[in-house]
């Protein structure tokens, strides 16, 4: 059997990859994708802990996380489309002024 710590380690590595993406990438869409990676890393530890404790609560939390991720993706992509209409760019450094 696989120890719980291995699942948690995979989750930690995935979360760090998502953090790196948010820091390093210069593209709003890739940054949103990195946030999805981080959410999935957290989901994996929720499911692993729920299995370990023998309850279904972890899976239910994952269900809610997925719903919030769907809402976040819809609103975030709408904002990206709106920003791209203004500046013709997806670089977050292009949006430094609060008003234009």
């Amino acid at each position, binding site marked *: 059997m696989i120890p719980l710590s291995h699942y948690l380690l995979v989750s930690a590595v995935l979360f*760090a990859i998502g953090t790196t993406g948010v820091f390093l990438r210069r593209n709003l869409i890739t940054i949103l994708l990195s946030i999805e990676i981080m959410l999935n890393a957290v989901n994996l530890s929720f499911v692993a802990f729920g299995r370990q404790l023998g309850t279904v609560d972890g899976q239910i939390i994952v269900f809610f996380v997925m719903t919030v991720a769907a809402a976040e993706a819809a609103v975030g992509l709408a904002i990206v489309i709106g920003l791209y209409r203004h500046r013709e760019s*997806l670089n977050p450094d292009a949006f430094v002024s609060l008003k234009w």
Partner: protein
Amino acid sequence: MPETLTFYLLSALAIGASALVIGQRNPMYSVLMLIASFGALAGLYIQLDAPFVAVAQIIIYAGAIMVLFLFVVMLLNAPKEDGADWDQAHPLRLPPVTRLGSMLAVLLVVQLAWALMEANGIGGPVSGETGADTVSSVRQLGRVLFTDYVFAFEATSILILVAMVGAVMLARREGERS
């Protein structure tokens, strides 16, 4: 042992595909790699005896959300990260600063791994007692979802409605009356 082999294979696939999401400059390939990563994670969920979460992962994440991302990538038609002059000259683009982000991420992994080493009670194998019957597991999930978590469930529906209205309002062209 095939179970252990499957775990390491799926984990390597998930981590490698996620790393490629970050490593690409073309967001189209990033989205496709992320779908591969989600598929590997769904395999891990099945191994953790959570078939409902695995199927929801495939349908909601890989099916719905990633199609939305692909749609926006194709709609905007800006595949490459733009390397404008002012971007190259930006103080945050200087080489030592760009390495700082990946150094911070490696530091995060080291910290989390150290915390996992120190923690007690997580070294044992993953073994819930619910294990035997996966169909009853889904039934139990639905029962708990509609009794203990019914308020959160209903609040979720409000959230989705608000997100839908917000997305339509934000993506609408300005000055359009309809």
